[in-house]
Every structure is written in C-alpha cells, then in structure tokens.
C-alpha cells in the first residue's frame, strides 16, 4: 500500500493545471519528473509480486518456484533498455490494459541483429531487425549500446491480460537444423 499510495499522491499532484499544461516553473517540472520516476519504481515492486503470483502454473511440481524480476524500462522512448542490451536471454511480458484483445508490433532495443523470439506456445515468431536511427544513437546523454531494434508481432494479447515472450540471441542457441539465412545487407 505505501508504494501504491505514493503513486496515487503523485497522480494527484499531476492533476494541477500547471502540470497538465506545462506552465510550471522549470524546477517544478524537474520535481514532477522525479516524483513520477520514484512512484513508478515503487510500484514495480507490486507489479513484480503480482506477476510472479500469476505466472506460477497450477501444475507446477517445484515447491519453490523461481521468481522473475519484471523490470520496467523507462528509457524505451530513446530505444534504450539495460535488460535487453546486457543479456543474451531475456523474457518480455506484455500486459494489455485495454478491454479488448490487441495485436502490437513490439520494438526491443538490442545490441545484435540475430535473435529468436518464442511465444508462450513455443512457436518461433517472424522477426525483423532495423538500425536505431543515427539521430538517436548520437544523442548526447543516451548511455546505451543498443544499435538495433528487434521487431516482432505480439498477436492476440488478451484483454486486461498478459503474454510473455522468450527472446534469445541466436548465436547462443544450439543448432537444431539448417541455420537460417543471415539478413541481407541493404
């Protein structure tokens, strides 16, 4: 509750007419940004706890199920995310807040161009990799090694529900058959 209350209080502050329209003083704008950041970080604890409860399958045999981190990446707007950049394997959980199922093209900042994406049924999805625009990689204060964005279609995300995708650098996957052709250079 203290975590949620901090977010509630912050959202209350954000209803002030200066916050809505951007007519606050610069130092106040920075304080608003800080409060939002702290509130989001506090609530990520709740999110982690809830998703870890939801993601335990009912037929699980292990008495001590593994807990996942479920980190938010607040710098995705500049194509930067520590988890996807620093790990060869990671999972991406998408929670759909809408009251109807949706399809969404997901873009994940990555450091390489060879990845596989596996959906919750075990199916390998078609992917595409495009370079992060030069104007973004050249941003002065962007501290990121992501040179590419991995794109895949997350289809039929359930209404107010979630799906988790497994993403892995394809170099680290044991060869099961004929390797796929490397992307054509344009």
């Amino acid at each position: 509750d203290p975590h949620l209350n901090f977010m509630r209080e912050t959202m209350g502050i954000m209803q002030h007419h200066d916050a809505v329209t951007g007519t606050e003083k610069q130092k106040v704008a920075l304080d608003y940004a800080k409060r939002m950041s702290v509130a989001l970080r506090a609530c990520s604890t709740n999110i982690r706890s809830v998703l870890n409860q939801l993601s335990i399958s009912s037929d699980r045999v292990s008495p001590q199920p593994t807990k996942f981190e479920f980190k938010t990446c607040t710098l995705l707007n500049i194509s930067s995310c520590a988890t996807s950049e620093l790990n060869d394997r990671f999972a991406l959980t998408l929670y759909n807040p809408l009251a109807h199922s949706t399809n969404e093209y997901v873009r994940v900042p990555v450091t390489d161009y060879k990845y596989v994406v596996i959906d919750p049924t075990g199916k390998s999805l078609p992917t595409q990799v495009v370079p992060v625009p030069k104007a973004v990689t050249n941003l002065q204060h962007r501290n990121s090694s992501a040179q590419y964005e991995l794109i895949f279609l997350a289809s039929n995300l359930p209404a107010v529900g979630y799906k988790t995708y497994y993403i892995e650098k394809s170099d680290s996957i044991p060869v099961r058959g004929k390797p796929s052709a490397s992307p054509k250079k344009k």
Partner: protein
Amino acid sequence: SSYTVIGNNNIKLTFDTNGFLAYVTADGMTRTISQEFLYYIAATGNNEEFLNRSSGAYIFRPDKNQIRFATDEVSLEVYKGQLVQEVHQQFNSWISQVVRVYKQSNHAEFEWLVGPIPIKDNIGKEVISRFTSDIKSEGIFYTDSNGREMLKRRRNHRETWNVKIHESVAGNYYPVTTKIALEDDTARMAILTDRAQGGSSLEDGVLELMVHRRLLHDDAFGVGEALNETEYGEGLIARGKHHLFMGKSLQRPEVSLKAIERLVQLETLLPSWKFFSNVSYSSDQWL
C-alpha cells in the same frame, strides 16, 4: 534519382527525389500528400502592454506570422523487411524522422525527433510538422475534445459570436489531445498524436501540429520564466509519434475509417506495458 515507395497492401507512401513525402495511396485512391517540418519565429513583445505579449509558456504567438522551412532537401535511408518498411529522414542537424508502415496496418507512423532547438541567433522557435494534401476542406477541420467527441472548427470563425481574427495563425490554433482531421466529399485525412499538442488547418487540405518549442521571453501570464529548458545543457530533445490515416470520406457500413482511427487511438494511448526479465533457462526449460 527515383521515387521511394514503402507500404503494404493497405497503404503506400511515395517519397520524391528530395526525400519528402509526395503521395499516399490507400483505400483505392492516390492523393497528393506532402509532409515537412517548419518553425515559427516567436513573437518578442513588450509585456507592459496587454496586446503586445511575447510568445511564452501560456500563449503561442508567432512574430508577424513568420515561418521558416527546416530544410529543402532530406537525406533518406530505406529499410524494407517482412514486418515493417521504414524510411529514416534527416531534415537538418536537429530534426529527423522515421516514417514506417507495418505489414498489417492501414496507417503510416511518423516518429519525429526534434531538438535541441538552436537559439544562438537569439530567436525563439516553435516547430511544427505540416501535412499538405489536395483535399478541399473549405476551411473546416475537426479536433478532438479530450479524446472523446470530435469538434467542428471553421477557420477565422467562432460558433457563438462574430469574430475578427487579428492574428491568423495563433487565432486559429486549437488544442489537440489525440486527433485532428479534415475531409471533403471524396477523401479524408486524419492524424493521431501520442500527446496533447496544438494544431490547426491554416489552408484548405493542410493540417499542422506543433511538436516542440523553445522560447527566450516570458509571456507575463504567471510562470515568470522563459520556456527555455537548458537544465541538461543544450536544450531539450523531444521524440514522439504521429499516425497518418488517409481514405475515402464516405461512411460505409463495411469499412469505417473513423472506426479504425478510434481503435488505433485507444491502442496508441494505451499501449501494452512492457516488463523485462533476466532468464537463465534455455527456451525449452522456460516453456
């Protein structure tokens, strides 16, 4: 040396040899639609006089409606794949954009990156993205009311009193929370935003949205400082998205462009939440 085309079965975008958007093909027709970045020169007033305010945090007020093009030539990089086709545009050293069409979508996405706006010339600038079409909108356009109903706007006109507009740009600007649109008997063009912006249609068939501004004077309405965010050194950089829809304006029972716009509006403003987890398992173990 030749036109560049990206798109899918639903929508195609053609870029001319200068790198600007030139045509959009969708819904069985091709229309002339261009897109460019421009900026207004911000008014510098004398705040002692009520009718001579500076452009500032509260008011948008270009100096004698002066507008400048960001560039007359755009460098292009094209990436075409099985899920998305996109064009990376560089307008100048501080404005760039990615225009993309996903395989299954029926609209185009414009992801703009603007800033830091240069101010070494001591001129405040208010940057817009402008879409120019051949649609004969006759002074009528529509902006949303906080994401809900669309309100009809008529250029140089107010619904409940006779008005004489003295400043034709500022006097025709309206708040856009999620959508701005115009149409004629045959075609319709709509732009969805990812945040609240100012917008207008200052000529028939033309829509513009303000994406970023950097000002050097206070407008004396209360904030007491210029809208010049230099806390991080050079000035802020803004990145955001516009979604362009074009199609027939006729309402048809089988396809409604407005219904599609509404759905994309929801999905744009309420996208999925993304949570990343480190995983040590192999894919089989994870499953």
